[in-house]
C-alpha cells in the first residue's frame, strides 16, 4: 500500500540519492540484505539508463521513481521523458549498446519481474518487481 514518489533531475549526479532511498525503504520493508542490494543495483541501473538518455537528449523533465510495497511484493517504476535509448551515441570506445545489454542482463537477473518499454507519451518506463 505505502507509496513513495521521488522525482530527480535527469542528471547522473542524482542517481546516488535514489540508491539511498531504495536501500532504506527496502530494508524498512523487511527485505533481506541480499535482496536489498539486488534491488538497489536494479533501480540504479534503471535510473542510469533514464538519466543517460536524458543527458544525451538534453531534456530537463524529471526522472520519476515510484516505490510501492504491499504484502506479497515490492514494485519500483522508473520513468523518464528522454529519447529512446537505442539511439544514444556511444561514448568514446565504450559502445553504449554493450553497456545497455549488460544493464539489461543485470535488470533481468536481479529482480523477479522486469520490463522496459516506451511510454505512450515519450520516454521509457522500467518496471521492477521483487516478490516476497
Amino acid at each position, binding site marked *: 500500500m505505502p507509496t513513495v514518489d521521488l522525482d530527480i533531475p535527469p542528471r547522473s549526479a542524482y542517481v*546516488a540519492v535514489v540508491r539511498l532511498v531504495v536501500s532504506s525503504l527496502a530494508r524498512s520493508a523487511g527485505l533481506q540484505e541480499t535482496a536489498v542490494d539486488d534491488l538497489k*543495483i536494479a533501480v540504479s541501473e534503471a535510473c542510469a539508463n533514464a538519466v*543517460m538518455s536524458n543527458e544525451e537528449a538534453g531534456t530537463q523533465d524529471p526522472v520519476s521513481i515510484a516505490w510501492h510495497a504491499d504484502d506479497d511484493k515490492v514494485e519500483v517504476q522508473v520513468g523518464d521523458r528522454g529519447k529512446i535509448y537505442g539511439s544514444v551515441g556511444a561514448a568514446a570506445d*565504450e559502445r553504449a549498446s*554493450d*553497456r545497455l545489454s549488460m544493464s539489461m*542482463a*543485470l535488470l533481468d537477473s536481479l529482480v523477479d519481474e522486469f520490463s522496459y518499454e516506451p511510454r505512450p507519451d515519450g520516454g521509457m518506463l522500467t518496471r521492477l518487481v521483487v516478490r516476497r
Partner: protein
Amino acid sequence: MELGLDVRKIGSYSVVDVKGEIDVYTAPKLREKLIELVSEGSYDVVVNLEGVDFLDSTGLGVLVGALKRVKAHDGGLSLVCTQDKILKIFKITGLTKVFPIHDSVEDATKDPE
C-alpha cells in the same frame, strides 16, 4: 560523491586502488584515470575493487573499454575483488570470463612464471 582513485607502481604493474561507488556519475572519472595511465605507457593495469561499495553497468563499460585499450598494446587488465556483491555483477554479465579476477593485489602483481 567522491570516487577515490590512487595509483601505485608494483614492479611493471600499475595498480589503481578504487574507493567508493562506481556509477553513472563517477564512472567517467575512472575512465579518465585509466585513459591517462595507458597514454603514459602503463599497459599492465590492476584495478583493485576491494574498496568499492557499488558497481553498475557504466563501471563495467569503463573496465571493458580499458581492457580493449591495454590489449591494443599487448598489455593486460586484471581485477582484485573478493566481495560477493561485486563478483555477482561480473558473473551476471559474463565478464568473469573476460577479466582475470584475483583475491589480492599481491596475487595480481605476481610476475608470470
